[in-house]
C-alpha cells in the first residue's frame, strides 16, 4: 500500500486528507466529551433538585431514582468506560443515547425534527448573502475610486463584526413592534396545518423573514469585504494589466479575469460556511423561538443534558469537517495549479 502511495502522489494527497479528517473529528469529540464530563454539575441531580424545588417536596427514594437514571444514561462506571461505551454507540449503531429534554425520545429524533428548520433558514440566508456579497463586492472593487464604494466598504466594515443577534434586536424593535410588518416569534402561524399546502409555506416564509434577515445582513457585509479585497488584489496582478493592454472591454476584463480568479477562493469559502451552519445561530433561534438546532441546544444547555449537547456538537463538527474535506477533494479537479503542486 505504501509503495502505491509513494508512486502516485495524488493518492497519498487524498489518503492523508482522509486520515486528517477522521483524526480531527475523533479528537474534537473526545475533547468535548471530557470537557462536559469533567465539569462538576450533573444533569440528573439538577433535574431532581429542580423537581424538588418545583413541587417543594423532598423525594425519599431520590438516590435510587438517580442511580437508575444514571444507568439509563450510561453515566455509570469510570469515566473511561462511559467514554468507550458512548463512542461505541455513536460510531457503530449511531445511537446518541436518550435525551433529557423529553426523556424517552432518543437524541437522534430530537435532532431530526430540528435539522430541516435550521438547514432551510441557514441555506437560504447564506446563499442570498453570498450571491449579493459577490456582486456588490465586485462592483465596489471595480469602481473603487467612486464615493459609493467607500461608503459601501465602511458600512460593511461596521456591520461585518456586529453579532447577528444585536442586528436581530434592532429588526425586532423596528420591523416587529414599531411597524408590525413581520411576526417576531415562532416559525409559522399555529392555525395552518403543517404540510406542503400553500399558506403554510407562506406563513413559514413570513415568520422566518426576520431571523433570516438578521443573519443575511451580517454575513453579506462579510462577503462584500472579502470579495472586494480579493478582486482589488486581482486587479493589481499582471494578467489584468496585460488584458487591458490587449484592448479588451473593461466589463469583459472584470468578469473574465478579475472575478473569475476570485471565484475559486469564494467558492471554497461558501462551502466552508455551509459546513458551519449546523452549529446554528443559537441566540437568533432563541430570540425568535425558531424550532431549529439552536433552540434544542439552548434547552439542552439549560438543564445540561450531555447527550443532546454532544449530539448537536457531533453534527456540527462532522458537517464542518465534511465541507472542508469535500473542498480539499474537489480542489485538485477545479484548480489545475493544485494538481501540479501536489506532486512537488
Amino acid at each position: 500500500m505504501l509503495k502505491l502511495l509513494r508512486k502516485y502522489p495524488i493518492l497519498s494527497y487524498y489518503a492523508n486528507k482522509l486520515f486528517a479528517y477522521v483524526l480531527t473529528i475523533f479528537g474534537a469529540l473526545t475533547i468535548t466529551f471530557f470537557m462536559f464530563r469533567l465539569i462538576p454539575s450533573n444533569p440528573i441531580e439538577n433535574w431532581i433538585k429542580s423537581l424538588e424545588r418545583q413541587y417543594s417536596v423532598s423525594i425519599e427514594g431520590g438516590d435510587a431514582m438517580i442511580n437508575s437514571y444514571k444507568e439509563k444514561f450510561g453515566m455509570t462506571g469510570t469515566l473511561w468506560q462511559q467514554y468507550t461505551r458512548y463512542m461505541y454507540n455513536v460510531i457503530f449503531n449511531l445511537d446518541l443515547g436518550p435525551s433529557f429534554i423529553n426523556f424517552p425520545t432518543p437524541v437522534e429524533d430530537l435532532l431530526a425534527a430540528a435539522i430541516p428548520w435550521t438547514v432551510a433558514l441557514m441555506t437560504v440566508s447564506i446563499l442570498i448573502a453570498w450571491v449579493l456579497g459577490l456582486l456588490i463586492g465586485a462592483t465596489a472593487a471595480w469602481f473603487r475610486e467612486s464615493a459609493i464604494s467607500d461608503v459601501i466598504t465602511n458600512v460593511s466594515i461596521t456591520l461585518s463584526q456586529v453579532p447577528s443577534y444585536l442586528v436581530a434586536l434592532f429588526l425586532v424593535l423596528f420591523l416587529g413592534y414599531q411597524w408590525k410588518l413581520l411576526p417576531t416569534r415562532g416559525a409559522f402561524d399555529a392555525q395552518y396545518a403543517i404540510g406542503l399546502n400553500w399558506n403554510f409555506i407562506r406563513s413559514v416564509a413570513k415568520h422566518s423573514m426576520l431571523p433570516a434577515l438578521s443573519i443575511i445582513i451580517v454575513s453579506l457585509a462579510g462577503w462584500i469585504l472579502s470579495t472586494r479585497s480579493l478582486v482589488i488584489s486581482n486587479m493589481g496582478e499582471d494578467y489584468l494589466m496585460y488584458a487591458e493592454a490587449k484592448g479588451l472591454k473593461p466589463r469583459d476584463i472584470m468578469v473574465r479575469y478579475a472575478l473569475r480568479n476570485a471565484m475559486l477562493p469564494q467558492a471554497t469559502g461558501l462551502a466552508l460556511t455551509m459546513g458551519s451552519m449546523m452549529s446554528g445561530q443559537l441566540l437568533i433561534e432563541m430570540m425568535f423561538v425558531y424550532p431549529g438546532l439552536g433552540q434544542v441546544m439552548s434547552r439542552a444547555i439549560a438543564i445540561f443534558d450531555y447527550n443532546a449537547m454532544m449530539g448537536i456538537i457531533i453534527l456540527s463538527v462532522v458537517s464542518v469537517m465534511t465541507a472542508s474535506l469535500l473542498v480539499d477533494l474537489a480542489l485538485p479537479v477545479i484548480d489545475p495549479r493544485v494538481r501540479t503542486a501536489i506532486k512537488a
Partner: protein
Amino acid sequence: MMTTQTQNVPVLDARSVTKVFNIPTPGFQREYIAAVDQVSLALSEKPARIVSLVGESGSGKTTLARMMLGLTPPTRGQILYRGKRISELDKREWWDFRRNVQPIFQDPFGIYNPFYRIDRALDMTIKNFNLASSSEEALAIKSEALRAVDLRPEDVIGRYPHQLSGGQCQRVMLARTLLLRPKVIIADEPVSMIDVAVRTLFLNILLDFRDTYDISCLFITHHLATAYYMGGPMLVLCFGRVVESGDIDQLLAKPSHPYTQQLLKAIPTPDPTQRWQNRANVKITERPLTHEGNKCVYVARCPHAMPICSQQRPPDFEIEEGHYAACFLHQDKPQREAIPQVSRRHRHAVGAED
C-alpha cells in the same frame, strides 16, 4: 608528514556531492532529479584564487553553494572543511568553519531584515565572532571595512536597507565578510541584481580581496563574460553536473564540451559589428525533466549525440593539462582518476586554528 599535509589540504573540498529532490511532473508519477550530481570542487588556501562556477538557472549552482556553506546537507558525497566532514565538526571546529567560509547572497534588498538598520548585519557578526572588545573598536573596524569597499561610513551607518541602492547594499555585505577575514567567500550570483555601472566596482573589490587579503572566492554566475573578467579556474555546470573545467583562457581557446560551445555562441557580444552568425534552433529550450544516472546529461540537446552518450555516464577526459571535459567525443584522451571519500579516521580537522 602532518605539516606538509596542511599545505595542500584544501580549505573547502566537495567530493562527488549529490543532492536529490522530487519534482512535479505532468504525469501522476513521482520523479526524482539530482539537482547536483556528483560534483567535486576544491578551494585551496594558498594561493588565493577566484574559482568561477557558470551555469544556467536550474543547473544546481545555488544548491551546491548552500551545501558548501553547510546550510543544506548533501544526499550523497561529502563536504570537507580542512579534511574533515562538516557534519562531524566539534563545536570549536564548527565556529572556525563558520568564520572561514562566508557567503554573499544574490538579492541585495532581501538580505537585510527590514526592521533593523543596515549596520546591524555588521554588529551581529562582530558580536558573535567577538571581533572587538569595546564599542569604539567595533565602530572603528566597521568604518574601516566600509571604507575598504568604497563606502563612506556616514552614508551607511544608521541608515535602513531601503534607503540604500542595490550596489551599496551588496558592498555592505562585502564589508561584513571582510570583517571576518574568511579563507573562502561563496558568492552566489552577487552581481546579477545590481546595475552594470556599479557591478564592475563590486568585481574589482573581489579581485582586491584576493590580492590583498588572500581570500579565495567561489564566484557563481550565469554570465560567462563576468566570469571571464574575474579570470582563474572555471567550472561549467549543466543540469547538476560539471561538464567542463579548467582555466578560463583554456576553455575559451578550446571549448571541448558541446554545451560550452553552444553557451559561447549564444552569448550576445556588446559589439554590433560581431553579431550572431548561427541560427539557434528551438530544440535548445527543451529541458530534460528526468535523467537517470547513466547517460550524458546534455544528450537530449546535443548536436553530436552518439549512442554511447545515452548508455553510459561520460567520465572526465583530460583535454590538456588541468582542462577536463565530460564528453565521449574525447574518448581517446586519458581519464581523470576518481577522488577518494574520506573515512572516519580523520578525527581532528587538520590545521584548524584555535
